[in-house]
């Protein structure tokens, strides 16, 4: 039994509710116990670190201190939360001035004993692919999947404790273990522009459009993601991108937890596919998965 502290992040109670729902279902089925961090506060996301570096470290500090005290690794399904927590851990371990500043505002010192994991890597490393394979009830045969990692799940290398930043493969291997066929493509770690979702929409449309078009050209049926911000851009902006370029894309964007859920035999209702803008049900039915 794997026991982890769970930091869902703000998006998972609003725009990415289906990610939270599917994560909880899948983890319970696999025997990964998630304990939600009590009274967690926002990690500071894309704004705290460009406004105040003390806020950027102090906001995740309480969560890190909780993890340290309870001697429990924490996992976040959101790449931005994961990155902010891991970066705060990294900064406060290396930079003594910052650690002291944060201790003063938080009222407690963080000693550097927490471990932060991204949910996608929990499935791959902590739980393990062999164990996952043994749980598969309905292999995702014939489904071509482009794994989109985005920027913050793997970068920077020393913060994420990960050395294949240019061509990560763990999600490709995870979907392969579920019976699907990973697609080779070029944009798996390019940025979708999440930090500019509301402020610089034109930039987001360009970055997201490039990612979607490359996945389509490389023959993907669906894109798998592990971040609510990536999902929001790729899924909800897709229609506008199609309209502007005059070309149909029609790529469903599926969370890694939903992907595992499908292989475990859950249906579209359990996994809340109705909340998606680009409907994944049609292609999944065509492939005989649903």
């Amino acid at each position, binding site marked *: 039994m794997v026991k982890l502290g769970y930091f869902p992040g*703000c998006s998972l109670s609003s725009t990415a509710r289906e990610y939270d729902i599917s994560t909880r279902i899948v983890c319970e089925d696999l025997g990964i116990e998630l304990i939600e961090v009590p009274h967690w*506060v926002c990690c500071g996301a894309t704004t705290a670190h*460009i406004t105040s570096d003390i806020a950027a470290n102090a906001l995740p500090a309480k969560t890190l201190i909780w993890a340290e005290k309870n001697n429990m690794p924490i996992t976040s399904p959101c790449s931005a939360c994961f990155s902010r927590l891991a970066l705060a851990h990294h900064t406060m371990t290396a930079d003594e001035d910052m650690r002291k500043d944060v201790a003063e505002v938080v009222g407690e010192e963080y000693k550097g004993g927490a471990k932060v994991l991204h949910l996608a890597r929990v499935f791959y490393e902590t739980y393990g692919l062999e164990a996952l394979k043994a749980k598969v009830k309905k292999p995702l045969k014939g489904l071509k999947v482009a794994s989109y990692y985005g920027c913050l799940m793997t970068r*920077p290398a020393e913060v994420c404790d990960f050395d294949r930043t240019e061509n990560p493969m763990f999600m490709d291997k995870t979907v392969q273990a579920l019976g699907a066929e990973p697609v080779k493509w070029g944009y798996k770690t390019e940025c979708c522009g999440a930090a500019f979702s*509301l402020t610089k929409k034109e930039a987001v449309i360009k970055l997201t459009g490039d990612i979607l078009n490359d996945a389509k050209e490389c023959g993907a049926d669906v894109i798998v993601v592990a971040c609510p911000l990536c999902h929001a851009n790729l899924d909800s902006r897709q229609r506008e991108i199609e309209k502007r370029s005059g070309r149909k894309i029609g790529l469903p964007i599926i969370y890694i937890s939903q992907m595992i859920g499908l292989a475990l035999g859950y249906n579209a209702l359990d996994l809340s596919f109705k909340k998606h*803008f680009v409907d994944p049900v049609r292609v999944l039915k065509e492939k005989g998965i649903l």
Partner: protein
Amino acid sequence: MKQYLEEKNFKQGFRKDVERLSKQKISNCYQCGKCSAGCPMAFKMDYPPTMTMRLIQLGLHDEVMGSNTAWYCVSCETCTTRCPREIDIAKVMDTLKIMAQAGKYEVSDTEIPIFDWIFLKSLQYTGKVYELGLIMAYNMLSLNPFKDVFPLGLQMFLKGKIALLPHFINDPVAMWEHLEMFSKIHKKQKAKIRETNG
């Protein structure tokens, strides 16, 4: 682009300020250009990251702070990951934005500072991001009240993707501590920026 190097335009203290606040050794940059090559937003920037690093080395603060470069940094960390001199370039961009938003220099962007202000206010009083409130407040203050409301916002609402009410920290003591922490952060950050020599 032509740069005229006149002594009156230099400010050595500027490089030192950026180095001290970002804890990065900017003089290490040897202008290889890997950061600009990988930057997904370089196409929008007045000066690409490599050039910005050089401008900081030279202490040309007006060029750096007056350009849109830092504001178009999307914090994807590609430059930081690839820098052969191990400079955290994304952090340098963060630092430029922190310095501008602390009121020390010109703020050469109209969108991001408004968004940051609303975001952090929302975070201060609820502890969690209230997405609907954030979007509405941002649209109002950026004088574009109906941006993304039709059809995107409406569809999101119909799909149950938008929570109507904010989520708070569900414990009064934790909430109080959170508010107190925020006021301390503001004081400390101000003091830290004021120390600069620039």
